[in-house]
């Protein structure tokens, strides 16, 4: 019960903090729109279905965008603020402190998702009619949670790097590319597809499309959440290893 409360309070607190940041808030909203606009211009030459496909894909790009760079830099930011040692020394497990931070980052991407859909509707006339609204909402929530969990794994994996933001930033394009947001996986070489299948955003994207366009999203949604849980488990193990090493070498602050 205490763990659930810590997760909920941490998530809400960080949502408020991120909403007030121009970099994470305003830019997180605007930046994916540039890429969405280019995609809409390119896909509008094709069928209306292609434009709808692009609209849904571009909207999810913002969720990943809000998470990748910010999650990479999450621990470095605590380090700059001088709070990392306090969080590591807290009685609560460090994973319970960090997980709501990265899920809050992906939740902020919801603004971008809504804005992109609205942008496509107003400027390009893309009418997104949702066939299964409840399943669509569930798919969006599952995708946000799974991407947040992926961000958690990134954050703890980059704990020893001072410039982790650059590594997080680097992952923005590859995930956009190989998770099927705007490009069907069938267009990639065969060796890329197994990599895509290991990534939760791939399944989250599929669940969102299936629920919006009238398919059966539940299997995709299940795989998305299972992969997210796997990332969290891996992240917890990495946290243990990293913190043990950092404590024994006195390198938490990297000073």
């Amino acid at each position: 019960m205490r763990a659930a409360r810590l997760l909920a309070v941490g998530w809400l607190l960080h949502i408020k903090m991120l909403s007030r940041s121009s970099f994470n808030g305003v830019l997180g909203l605007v930046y994916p729109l540039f890429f969405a606009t280019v995609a809409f211009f390119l896909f509008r030459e094709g069928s209306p279905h292609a434009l709808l496909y692009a609209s849904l894909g571009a909207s999810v790009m913002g969720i990943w965008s809000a998470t990748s760079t910010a999650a990479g830099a999450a621990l470095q930011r605590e380090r700059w603020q001088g709070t990392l040692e306090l969080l590591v020394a807290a009685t609560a497990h460090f994973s319970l402190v960090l997980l709501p931070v990265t899920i809050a980052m992906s939740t902020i991407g919801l603004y971008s998702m809504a804005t992109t859909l609205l942008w496509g509707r107003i400027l390009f006339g893309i009418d997104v009619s949702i066939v299964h609204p409840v399943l669509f909402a569930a798919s969006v929530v599952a995708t946000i949670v799974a991407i947040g969990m992926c961000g958690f794994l990134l954050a703890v994996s980059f704990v020893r790097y001072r410039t982790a933001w650059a590594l997080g930033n680097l992952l923005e394009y590859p995930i956009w590319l190989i998770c099927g947001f705007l490009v069907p996986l069938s267009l990639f070489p065969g060796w890329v597809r197994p990599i895509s299948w290991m990534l939760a955003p791939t399944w989250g994207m599929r669940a969102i499309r299936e629920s919006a366009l009238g398919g059966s999203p539940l299997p995709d949604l299940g795989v998305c959440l299972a992969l997210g849980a796997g990332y969290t488990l891996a992240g917890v193990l990495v946290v243990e290893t990293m913190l043990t090493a950092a404590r024994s070498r006195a390198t938490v602050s990297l000073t």
Partner: protein
Amino acid sequence: MTGLRIFFIGGVTSYRALFNWLSPWIFVPTFLVAPIFQILLFVYIGRSAGVQSDEFYVIGNALQYAAIPCIFAMSNTIAGERFQQTLGYILATPAGRLPLFVGRSLPVIVNGMGVSAFALVVGGAIVGIHVPASSVGALALVIAISAFACTGLGLVSAAIGLLARDTATLNNIVFGLLLVFTGANVPLHELPGWMSTIAQGLPLTHGIEAARRLAEGASLSSVDRLVGAEALVGVLYAFVGYLFLTAMEWQSRNRATLERL
């Protein structure tokens, strides 16, 4: 002589001191790997949408990505003085403002050229585009002029950065606008009229068009108007940037916003 020393030596020193992205941990992922993935992203989107050739996206994005080093480096090397708490000392010196600020742009242009050229060569090799050997020299010239023009815009961004708090947000928005407007991914004739009109006054637009024609085998003389237009745009932005910088200096003294963070 002092002016030249400030221009060349001061420029390089300031660039190395203030542009912390030169660390390999930032330089490699941001300037060498990310542009390749940007190229691949748009090549595959283009293939998925069934529009334009791979060459169109490779050249467009390789040149457009020069915006990252040119705009971010330019604002870091000028607006960065404020974050280092050294802006007051710099502006208290009797050094001429032209060599002081514009001298910092030379290493930025070289960096922008390097990033674009690397992206073009590696991205082109991965995707498999063919550029005639006879066009390589002219392409290098166009890349250099495009990087110069983009650095001019970076100078404007740097001037705004002396007053604005968050230069990273501003620079990312400028990068996004260049992505949409310059024809890097959408041909200008497919953009609405007002967008393609604005594009004529932006850096990279003419450079990208010239580079595409050169890659198709055109001679340098046949794209001289485009190259000239790109250079002119660069000169105008550099001039406006310099005026902005001197105006911002005056205003920041007047309103005591010199060290505002």
